[in-house]
């Protein structure tokens, strides 16, 4: 299964002013893998995500997704091509209901035109109903269905995180990028999240790239791990290899884990 190359990042760099936040990074991710991305604060992990999802344009290098170059495409185009993400700082549509949050993510697949919606043609009703049904299904999976009419901003933190993941899944991605999904969760909640990630990966046939500082999560779920430091890739390998890598220990893990 790990044969088709899904994401191929080729020597990508990005600088801000004088600062090289990501420098000459190459990453290959195969279909179905679950990859971890770790590194000290400010190493450039989120910046790399931003490059992958079109928030920033690479200064140099190429990003191939499903053999297509996506470097510099607009975020919505990249999402439509099948890469979705969550954000390090939660970015839900706070004043909208939980269900609407998910329905918005289905928007790009909707087929009814503005014209149909304004004149309430049958295709509008059909389209909207489909969205609602699919949205509800997804919410059920994430155990959020009983809160579908709640405003997103009123959810507790953990549920907001789950909703963000659900919303990203609603875009039907091939590749899911998760930026610190366990931040602010206690160990117990982190474990539940770990189960959830494993489960959706199977259920939705996903490839996942994950940034996380919680080593219990990273080491347990990831197939392979990339380590960034000061914008550069300093190590890659299986969790076991990474844990013993002296450079990683020095820069990131510290003595005791």
């Amino acid at each position, binding site marked *: 299964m790990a044969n088709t190359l899904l994401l191929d990042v080729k020597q990508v760099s990005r600088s801000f002013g004088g600062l090289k936040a990501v420098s000459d990074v190459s990453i290959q991710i195969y279909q179905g893998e679950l990859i971890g991305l770790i590194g000290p604060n400010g190493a450039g992990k989120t910046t790399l995500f931003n490059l992958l999802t*079109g928030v920033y344009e690479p200064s140099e290098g190429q990003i191939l997704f499903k053999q297509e170059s996506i470097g510099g495409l607009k975020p919505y185009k990249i999402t439509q091509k099948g890469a979705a993400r969550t954000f390090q700082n939660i970015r839900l549509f706070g004043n909208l209901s939980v269900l609407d949050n998910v329905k918005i*993510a289905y928007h790009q697949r909707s087929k009814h035109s503005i014209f149909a919606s304004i004149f309430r043609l049958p295709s509008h009703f059909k389209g909207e109903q489909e969205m609602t049904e699919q949205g509800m299904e997804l919410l059920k999976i994430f155990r959020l269905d009983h809160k579908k009419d709640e*405003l997103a901003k009123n959810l507790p933190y953990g549920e907001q995180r789950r909703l963000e993941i659900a919303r990203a899944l609603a875009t039907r991605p091939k590749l899911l990028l998760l930026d610190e999904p366990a931040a602010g969760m206690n160990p117990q909640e982190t474990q539940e999240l770990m189960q959830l990630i494993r489960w959706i990966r199977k259920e939705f046939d996903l490839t996942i790239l994950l940034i996380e500082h919680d080593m219990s999560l990273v080491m347990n779920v990831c197939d392979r791990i990339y380590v960034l430091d000061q914008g550069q890739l300093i190590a890659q390998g299986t969790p076991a290899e990474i844990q013993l890598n002296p450079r990683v220990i020095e820069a990131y893990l510290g003595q005791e884990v």
Partner: protein
Amino acid sequence: MMRKNKNFIIGVLISLFIYLVIQVLISMGILSDFWISTIILISINIILGVSLNLINGFTGQFSIGHAGFMSIGAYLSAIMTLDFNLPFPLALLVGGIAATMAGFLIGVPSLRLKGDYLAIATLGFGEIIRIIWLNTEYVGGASGLSGIPALTNWTWVFIWMMITILVVNNFVNSTHGRACISIRENEIAAEAMGIHTTKYKVIAFMIGSFFAGIAGGLSAHMFYIINPNSFNFMKSFEILVIVVLGGLGSTSGSIIGAIVLTMIFTLLQDYPEIRMIIYSLLLILMMIFRPKGLMGTREFSFQLKKRGEQYGKHTSA
């Protein structure tokens, strides 16, 4: 969906009832000209408010150039009826479409801008349009076009008011409208969800401008005369006040805002010296006591039983 439809039918029935009552009062001569014109003015303001709300309230794009679009509709429709003898409905459409095109032209480049910068750019566009009218002798320059036939009547404004409300409402309550709202809520996330944000901003601008143009045409054919000064930035602010006072992102709010503000302004007619003082005091007070506007983001619902619940929270199942 059943509930939506029921709501819709009740809404239509109530509107028709209002239409008929007013129409009867007009034909029986019970309403004086002044009150007829007040009702028409309210309706025109409703069209303006509801359409600007689509841009400002729902899509979250801070625009204060609505008077500019309105003026395009006003001038073009007036030229159409005056110089080309076009029938009124057609002339209105020409005005609306011209305003839509302007909305497109303005929308595309300026939507790179955010927040206050967008506001000042739209204000600038509005002023540029006004200055163009001011310097065009064909449309009368500073004194404007006069002798425009009085073709606007209650029936026409009512029809256009209903069309505006329905179109904006149907748009907003669809996946397309949600796309716009998601831009307001968090543009970066919206884009990450695959929403072509620029496209939807431009669409919101175009729909909003279309109805502003229609309102301009109706107003031109109501008050016989238009001049560039009627469409200066203060007019844009007036419309913005309607929208914010009613509640950003609430169509019912814009309707109420238009009614309340127009009525206050009209009722104060008898006190010319203190009219604007009271008007501005009321404005300040209303904002202090209802900072989210009279309606917040809530909408009218004809299910009166549920009102209480909706007041607190969006929990209706």
